[in-house]
């Protein structure tokens, strides 16, 4: 009986981690339409950088601040030196550039920090806690809480004036220019925030999972799957992440642990093959969670969750 509880709680925690990883993808997609393949590298940078500093005696808080700031600075440099110079002629060329940058960044991390995996000390030390018949690490509770806070903050920020300005840039850069918003500056700010969030995610996840330079790409992919499945909105990505986490956990628990990853990849295939068939919508005040850049009236689809 407590096994079911354990599978469910594990699924929720895994889902929160998925959601955390997907937030940076959703943010960059909203702000500039780009695919943020660098997200995994930023997460890994968060772990490796914080670990490097704390092993030299730095206290946790300043180490995290420095690492998060570095992630932002590195991404700013990448944007100014590379991304801005490459005319985004097609979505494909932009995607390829992002992919190449992600691989290059992983290599640099390996050269700079070494390929060995590292972990972080838990922010909240202590034995695991019991919750509804399941056992959780304290850090995992922190992850779930932090994810909830971040999502709320992002959704609220998206509804603020600046948030709307950022979304406008992704919708229609020319239109944005005509009302006085600088799409280039907005894109850069979006990337920097996403990078910082990625590094912060690394600091949160580091105590739970040892990570090395080669972990980056897989983490990116998980974020991509959750964000794509959720229609690129913050709330959608969260629900999708939870769905993925629970499905994986229950599959591993009740069917077979061999099939765990097959499930999430199959779901991604579903998304790619039928983009319109799985979409999240919220009808509250016509706020649309999913991102849609068509200007023609929408066909009416049934709501699925």
């Amino acid at each position: 009986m407590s096994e079911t509880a354990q599978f469910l709680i594990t699924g929720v925690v895994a889902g929160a981690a998925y959601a955390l990883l997907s937030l940076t993808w959703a943010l960059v997609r909203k702000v500039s339409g780009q695919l943020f393949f660098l997200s995994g590298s930023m997460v890994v940078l968060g772990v490796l950088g914080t670990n490097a500093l704390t092993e030299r005696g730095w206290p946790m808080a300043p180490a995290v601040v420095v690492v998060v700031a570095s992630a932002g600075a590195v991404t700013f440099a990448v944007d100014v030196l590379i991304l801005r110079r490459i005319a985004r002629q097609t979505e494909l060329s932009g995607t390829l550039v992002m992919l190449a940058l992600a691989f290059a960044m992983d290599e640099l991390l390996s050269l700079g920090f070494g390929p060995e995996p590292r972990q972080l000390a838990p922010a909240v030390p202590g034995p695991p806690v019991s919750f509804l018949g399941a056992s959780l690490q304290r850090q995992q509770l922190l992850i779930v809480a932090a994810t909830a806070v971040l999502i709320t903050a992002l959704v609220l920020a998206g509804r603020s004036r600046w948030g709307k300005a950022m979304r406008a840039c992704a919708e229609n850069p020319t239109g944005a220019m005509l009302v006085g918003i600088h799409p280039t500056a907005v894109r850069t700010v979006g990337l920097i925030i996403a990078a910082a969030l990625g590094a912060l995610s690394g600091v949160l996840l580091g105590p739970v999972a040892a990570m090395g330079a080669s972990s980056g790409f897989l983490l990116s992919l998980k974020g991509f799957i959750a964000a794509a499945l959720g229609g690129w909105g913050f709330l959608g990505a969260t629900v999708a992440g939870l769905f993925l986490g629970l499905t994986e956990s229950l599959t591993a628990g009740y069917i077979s642990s061999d099939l765990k990853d097959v499930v999430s990849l199959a779901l991604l295939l579903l998304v790619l093959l039928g983009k319109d068939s799985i979409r999240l919508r919220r009808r509250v005040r016509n706020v649309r969670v999913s991102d849609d850049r068509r200007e023609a009236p929408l066909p009416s689809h049934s709501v699925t969750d």
Partner: protein
Amino acid sequence: MSRIALLTVGACVVAGTVGCSAAGQSSSEKDGRTVYIGAMFDLTGPFAPVGTAERQAFTLAVAQAERDTGIRVRTRVEDSRTSPDTAVKITREFLRDKVSAIVGPTPTQLCDPAHRLTDASRTPMFCITPFPEKTTPSLFLVDAPRVTLVGDVPARFMQKRGWRRVACIYTADAGGKGYADAINQAAPKYGLKVVASESFQQGDTDLTAQLTKIRAAKPDVVYSCSSGANLIAVLKGMAQLRMAQPVFAGHASVNYDIAHLAAPNLPPGGLFSDASPVLIPDQVPSGMAGAAKAKQFADAYVKAHGGKRPDTVAGYVADTVAIIAQAAKAAGSTDRKSLARQIEKTCGYEGVLGRYCFSPANHRGLASESNMIVRWTPTGTFTLTEVLSSQNAPAPSPSAG
């Protein structure tokens, strides 16, 4: 300091490494005094931590071999990227370049396709892995067969401790399945039962679902049938689920980097693994084969790498290079076929892992004499806790940890 070393290694890899190898340039290998070794290590990809350590050991081993034998060693080092295709491509290049012998690759899934090429051209290849079941005329391995090393040894220890019910959590790839097969074969021989067997993907960090099922099967010991940092995921998951059982670490997880990561995550029942002389040179009983060489190599390694200690994999590389150089010296020629034949005649050579005896029938070389079992400590090191003697004679061992 180590960061600078790493960056230098990285730069060398990028630049193509021939200029960085300790041997440097030398004349053609036909003079019998220069043996040309092609080496491939996984410097990128999931096996990168292993490959980088191997690369460091290789440089040192080449320098030592030249000193010991007077033979010049010319080397070419490539990155096999934990990719079977890359390994095959590199093997082809090495063969075209007419190397005398090949060191590497390491993962099972790379060794399999690569050694088929070397078999065809009769070039000796030393895969740095114990996993291929059968050796072929050109394939040499420097360790005991899989079932022995990762099946019998753990099983014997578990039997000695009275841990009858064994749970195996393995990575769903060739390496992990190799471990699982090995323990499945060995368990009945020692009166053990594998009560649970769960798989996970390489790199997965959340194993609570699998461990929950394992916990329900009430094992006496959990065998981490995986390599590298996967062990850490097992330990963390067990801690979360409050599982107190002892854990036996997979052979390919046994190194000081992983020990450092494992130190804060040790299970109450203890974390154990096999150990080679080169891993614990200060604790090896003095009569044991390999003790002296191991100490010498470990000291040189620590000095050359700023305090970093070598592990068993470094030992594989060191002994492999030494055996190739010794064979070249004894054969008086560095032609590949004579080299292979000479290696087959090498018996009695004492390396850092023990005493080797090759023969045409035995390409594995390492006579399985004693096997040391260590307990992992909260300070990131290993303490010798048991010596399993193959003759069942009482072996010198401190009290069980």
